[in-house]
């Protein structure tokens, strides 16, 4: 993942040297038991239970306290956590999980299949975002004995889709603490979670910190190594970098520092700055077109806009070493689904852009061909830099762009509900399988107001059929081929463009060991993390 890309900000030296550090591939020195690991916690969430909310903001805390059925190993393959083994019936409608034995909740009660059944039917299926879609056709979870959970679906569920999704969407909550205790959403446990994980919840001082201590009864032998984890709430990114340099914080996850701080700390031997450990959290920057604007419904105009942007220049000068040219909705890190042929790529060509606009009938009378409103999402420094770049680049081909600022709720409302935009720009998060959160950006028939879905007023029966077929195709080879077709169609019709691919960046103290050793390490349980002196 970009390990040899040269850093190009002005004062750059290659930071690749810092990215491939000996500690990462070191044959293990004996792990040191003990120590307090402090984590930068930039955005407080409304609750901490990952069975109810699927986002990295929750996993960074909840993922250490509660555990999923399945996680990803160092090679990105599913590995059992609370589940030991699994098998699927040939028709794909029944998937059986054999659960791990001898696991207890933090309050001492045993973990059983009843917990899995309860969580799946009441939380994953009814409340969990992305879980409701994933488990749409789940009809029941049978529990023939305390260690077996049988998932029964009314339509075939591809096993590898389920296994890829469960690390994020498969966290288990204790039935005995949630059942018959009133509304699940209002259960106070959501802010003081009880799980089976390596760390037990201790305290949450809102606005300041969260503390979790080692779980002495954790089911893995000799784990965890750390005594305690402390999450410090720091909303200002410059202040967070300052605290890291002052030694108050060990780890800042998910690109929570500014781009220039990432570059700067990357050259500091006290820190490791890399994308390793985040391959499961790839995202692409998007440019979304509103077809309700007549000009944008013409594919030539959309292609012209794509050709007018010098993406490699932008990446090199503004985003630094951790971004690369995107090729389509499926990012290159997805080894299972990345197609060999991605279809048209729209290289930078100002002349071609002008020609396409002329052809479409938008001549540059007095300098301006058309005026567009661009709404960038407010949650990323790269997004606002990209918006400025789009504004300037399109200005050079005669398209006047006005950038409209919104806060988070306002942005979602304006773009995905009221459709009050011409262009929008944000992130598309890829969640290990296109069916989870990628195809909804293209499939027609999305309800009005559903964010990060096809709200462009664009319908394409061809791509709808490809998406539907792939969602229920059980054979992995055929599925991959179908998604290849999906990508080529998406890139040629261009309802949205995904020209930049990024992986979250981790900044961590060089004293940490056994970090970044899974593709979703920031969200994983850290049972083997330790701090050297």
């Amino acid at each position, binding site marked *: 993942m970009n390990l040899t890309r040269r850093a190009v*900000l*002005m*004062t750059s030296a290659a930071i690749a040297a810092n990215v491939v550090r000996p500690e990462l591939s070191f044959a293990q020195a004996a792990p040191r038991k003990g120590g307090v690991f402090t984590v930068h916690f930039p955005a407080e969430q409304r609750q901490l239970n990952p069975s109810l909310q699927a986002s990295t903001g929750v996993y960074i805390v909840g993922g250490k306290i509660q555990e999923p059925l399945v996680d990803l190993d160092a090679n990105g393959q599913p590995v059992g956590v609370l589940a030991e083994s699994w098998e699927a019936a040939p028709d794909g409608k029944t998937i059986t999980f054999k659960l791990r034995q001898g696991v207890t909740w933090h309050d001492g009660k045993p973990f059983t299949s009843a917990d899995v059944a309860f969580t799946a039917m009441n939380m994953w299926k009814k409340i969990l975002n992305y879980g409701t879609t994933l488990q749409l056709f789940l009809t029941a979870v049978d529990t023939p004995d305390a260690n077996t959970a049988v998932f029964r679906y009314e339509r075939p569920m591809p096993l590898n889709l389920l296994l890829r999704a469960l690390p994020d969407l498969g966290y288990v909550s204790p039935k005995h603490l949630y059942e018959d205790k009133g509304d699940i959403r209002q259960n106070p446990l959501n802010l003081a979670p009880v799980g089976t994980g390596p760390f037990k919840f201790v305290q949450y001082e809102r606005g300041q910190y969260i503390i979790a201590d080692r779980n002495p009864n954790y089911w893995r032998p000799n784990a965890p190594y750390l005594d305690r984890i402390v999450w410090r709430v720091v909303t200002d*990114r*410059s202040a967070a*970098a*300052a605290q890291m340099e002052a030694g108050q914080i060990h780890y800042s996850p998910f690109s929570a520092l*500014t*781009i*220039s*701080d990432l570059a*700067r700390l990357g050259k500091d031997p006290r820190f490791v700055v890399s994308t390793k450990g985040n391959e499961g959290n790839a995202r692409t920057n998007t440019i979304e077109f509103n077809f309700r604007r007549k000009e944008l419904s013409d594919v030539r105009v959309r292609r012209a806009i794509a050709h007018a942007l010098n993406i490699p220049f932008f990446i090199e*000068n*503004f985003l630094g070493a951790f971004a690369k040219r995107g090729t389509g909705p499926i990012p290159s890190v997805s080894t299972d689904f990345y197609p060999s042929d991605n279809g048209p790529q729209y290289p930078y060509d100002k002349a071609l852009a002008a020609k396409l606009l002329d052809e479409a009938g938008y001549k540059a009378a007095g300098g301006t061909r058309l005026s567009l409103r661009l709404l960038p999402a*407010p949650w990323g*420094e790269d997004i*606002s*830099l990209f*918006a*400025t*770049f789009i*504004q*300037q680049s399109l*200005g050079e081909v005669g398209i006047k762009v*006005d*950038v*409209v*600022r*919104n*806060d988070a709720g*306002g942005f979602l409302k304006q773009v995905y509900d009221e459709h009050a935009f011409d262009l929008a720009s944000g992130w598309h998060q890829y969640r290990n399988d296109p069916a989870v959160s990628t195809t909804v950006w293209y499939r027609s028939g999305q309800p009005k107001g559903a964010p990060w879905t096809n709200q462009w007023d664009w319908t394409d029966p061809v791509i709808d059929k490809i998406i539907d077929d792939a969602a229920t195709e059980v054979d992995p080879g055929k599925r991959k081929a179908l998604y290849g077709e999906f990508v080529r169609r998406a890139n040629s019709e261009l309802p949205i463009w995904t020209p930049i691919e990024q992986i979250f960046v981790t900044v961590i103290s060089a004293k940490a060991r056994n970090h970044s050793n899974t593709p979703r390490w920031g969200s994983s349980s850290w049972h083997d993390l330790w701090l050297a002196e």
Partner: protein
Amino acid sequence: MEALRRYFRSPPAVLGLILLLAVLAMAASAGWLYPRDPLSLAGRPLIWPLQDARFLLGTDNSGRDIAAQIFHGARFSLLIGLVATVIAVIIGVVIGACAGYYGGWVDNILMRITEAFQTLPNFLLLLVLVAVFGSTITTVTVAIGIVSWPAPARLTRAEFLSLRNREFVQAGRVLGLRDAALIFGEILPNALPPIIVYASVVMGVSIVLEAALAFIKLSDPNIASWGNLIGLGRDVLRVQWYVSAIPGVAILITVLGVSLVGQGLNDALNPRLKAR
């Protein structure tokens, strides 16, 4: 006039005027010195000041010329400050005049409203207004004006309370002048001097309020305001601190100039109260 001479005898007041004229000069010459759109890409990002002859003040994180943004920004900061101040003063004067002149239940209601605006922390109200009405330069300016009117209102009311029973007003009443004529024709011109002086304070505050909004990324991103530049520079603060520092200094100079001019006016118009 006597007041003018008094003004120029005070060194701080003269300094303030010089600073203000400097900023005005920047605003006036911006179009001529930096004819290109100040928000257009000019060079590589994050060039330090004095390193490249083309960019005396360096470039920001989007590769835009900082000097161009400072000069053009002078226009916007002064404009925003001025318009917001005018809005605040007009609203404040109208409300204060009515409250002070009519007294009774009119005064009561208007003062309740004024008190409501003053009790609410003005930055909070600003946040709400911007969240509701959006972040364009128009809405931000109007919002700042709306948040700033209570103090001019109180000042106007106090002036009117003391002036309304003076002889010239009673004379006007005897002559049969209508209320509006009395308020705007007779009393207001006499009440204006302290209000105008206070307007300088409001202007200084308005400029800083816009910068604060831009700092938390809630201002209009399509204009080259100084506040936007400070907000941009926040992301590179630790090393390329000049991106935030330079517009900060510009704001400092402007607010300083405005304050000194206001103070000078105050001293010149009220020699008895001048602390010398």
